[in-house]
């Protein structure tokens, strides 16, 4: 997949919230590139409507969305737009939760999903720390749906479709450490809140957010653990075979010892 431009590199994206004007070009580009369906009815919805949805406007056919909030800044109500999509965690909970490897973390950064391997247990949806994964409840043969970070484009050294169309520079894309550097430069330059959301959240992600108003006022999950979620299960899973074999050995020993010289029970 990767070519000479991308081999060995990891990419990330930055969302500069104050720079976003809510034009939703990114949403349109996403639909076009990924061939996602759209309903005329849902086109009537505004970013404010989406902000009121439990899903923040993310649906099986809406992999990215713009939500609008009116947080307070310097004592006045202001207008801020947030782009929502999968964070593409460094050590993703969905990948570790999936028991049939339907989710995969690409070396370049994207976390992708393959429906042909999916059983449909939906453990990934509950495990996801940002509640990104959506399910096709209406279909007889449903799958999970979420942003794939335009994995084929990223592998070829191109930016995801959404980033490539952003007219304001609110979206910035590149190698991950450069994106982080840019995030910190913009924070210093514009006097933003000194927090790159996504740098540590859930153990680190590929999508970073910077803002001049508190993240909590824009439905960010600010209380999310900064430990990578798979680390909670790793030692448990590593211990399982040892415990299992040890316990079986103990049982076998007890069985032999206790049945010695006795008639076997049926």
């Amino acid at each position: 997949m990767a070519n000479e431009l991308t081999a060995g590199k990891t990419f990330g994206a930055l969302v500069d919230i104050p720079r976003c004007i809510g034009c939703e070009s990114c949403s349109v580009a996403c639909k076009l590139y990924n061939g996602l369906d759209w309903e005329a009815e849902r086109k009537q919805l505004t970013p404010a409507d989406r902000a009121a949805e439990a899903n923040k406007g993310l649906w099986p056919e809406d992999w990215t969305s713009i939500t609008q909030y009116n947080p307070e800044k310097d004592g006045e109500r202001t207008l801020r737009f947030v782009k929502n999509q999968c964070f593409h965690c460094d050590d993703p909970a969905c990948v570790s939760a999936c028991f049939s490897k339907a989710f995969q973390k690409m070396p370049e950064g994207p976390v992708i999903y393959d429906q042909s391997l999916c059983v449909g247990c939906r453990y990934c949806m509950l495990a996801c720390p940002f509640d990104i994964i959506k399910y096709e409840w209406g279909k007889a043969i449903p799958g999970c749906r979420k942003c794939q970070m335009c994995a084929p484009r990223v592998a070829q050294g191109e930016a995801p479709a959404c980033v490539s169309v952003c007219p304001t520079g609110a979206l910035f894309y590149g190698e991950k450490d450069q994106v982080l550097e840019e995030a910190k430069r913009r924070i210093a330059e514009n006097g933003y809140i000194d927090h790159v959301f996504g740098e540590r959240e859930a153990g680190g992600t590929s999508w970073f957010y910077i803002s001049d108003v508190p993240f909590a006022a824009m439905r960010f999950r600010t209380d999310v653990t900064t430990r990578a979620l798979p680390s909670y299960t790793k030692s448990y899973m590593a211990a399982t075979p040892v415990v299992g074999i040890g316990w079986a050995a103990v049982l076998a020993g007890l069985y032999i010892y206790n049945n010695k010289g006795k008639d076997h029970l049926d």
Partner: protein
Amino acid sequence: METVRKRWTFKMTPVRGIFILVALCALAIIVVRLILGLGATTNLNDQWPWGFWISFDVLIGVALAGGGYGVALIVYVLRRDKFYPIARSAMLTSLLGYVIVVLGLLIEVGQWFNFYEPFISWGHHSVLFEVFWCISMYTLIQVLEFGEIATEKVFKGAHKLLKRIMPVLLVVGITLPTLHQSSLGGLYYEMIGKLDPLWWSPLLPPFFLVSSFFVGPAMIVLETALAQKATNHVVPVPILKGLVKISAVAMLIYFIAKIGDLFVAGEIGNAFAGTFASNMFLLELGIGCAVPLLLFFAGACAKRGGLILYGLCAVAGVVMNRFNVVLTGMGEYLNRAGGQYFPSWMEFVVSAGLVSIACLIYLFAVENFNITGGPKHEENAPQSGKFAAE
């Protein structure tokens, strides 16, 4: 050959008629679910991807089937032979519990036809991977264990072989549930920050394991009380008393660990916060542990009535615990932005139907195979000499 008797029997009674009716309704809904999908039959949604079927059919089904591996451990491995008369029925109910679990899972997952994927595409980092392997293997083992009983009557040629491998089946058949009973709790490790800390704990796996162990005898007490009417099989009180004693010791350990865990995590105050979740938590521990432990230590479990009350409380407690983990404990997080879930009537009917199917199979098996043994069934069970309690 012994006396001529009908090879297969199934006595129709009004209760069995109801079971059949409910099972047929459930099957009809299952057909609808397979054709129209989960959205048309359940109230599950993107905020609530797991609901009634996961909590009842799977988590509660597996927990309440804990009597099977528990009794196998006590009788066959530790050779407490006095419990032998209930071994076969306990292990059969466990098998039927897993039949509910497997059928329930098959209709619960979206792409049921892909059920075998984890066998070939190993997501071995997932706790669910372990649960899946253990539950499938254990169900298979239980079928073979039942095969050892069934081949007394049909396919007699295989009986000797099955009997010979029984020790292996038993040892593996205790190891696997020990693993997956705990791992069902381990599934919720990933839900840190989502599941209420009254339930989320690094000790979730041992909590799930121990509760499945102590609820086993409680289920056996209830099952034998129910089956007594249907099958004329009376289990002597001393056997049940002995089982409940084992259960109560495990329950006491669980109860102390549970409270200790809250103290260590600094969450004990939240148990009395007066919220819906905290009240459910108190109810769960009160009815599920405090009351039965009081009953036991007050000596009320010497009689059948006290035993049944102990059984009812312990089962209710574990049922509440599993519902609380999947539903109550996740509620505050999943509903915080306007999510909501209450099971649809179809979800209830399907679960009731699965239970009905299991009951029907149980009744059929008890009538046609030597499950309950004992002198009462002398005429139906030619080999019953072996089954007298020691």
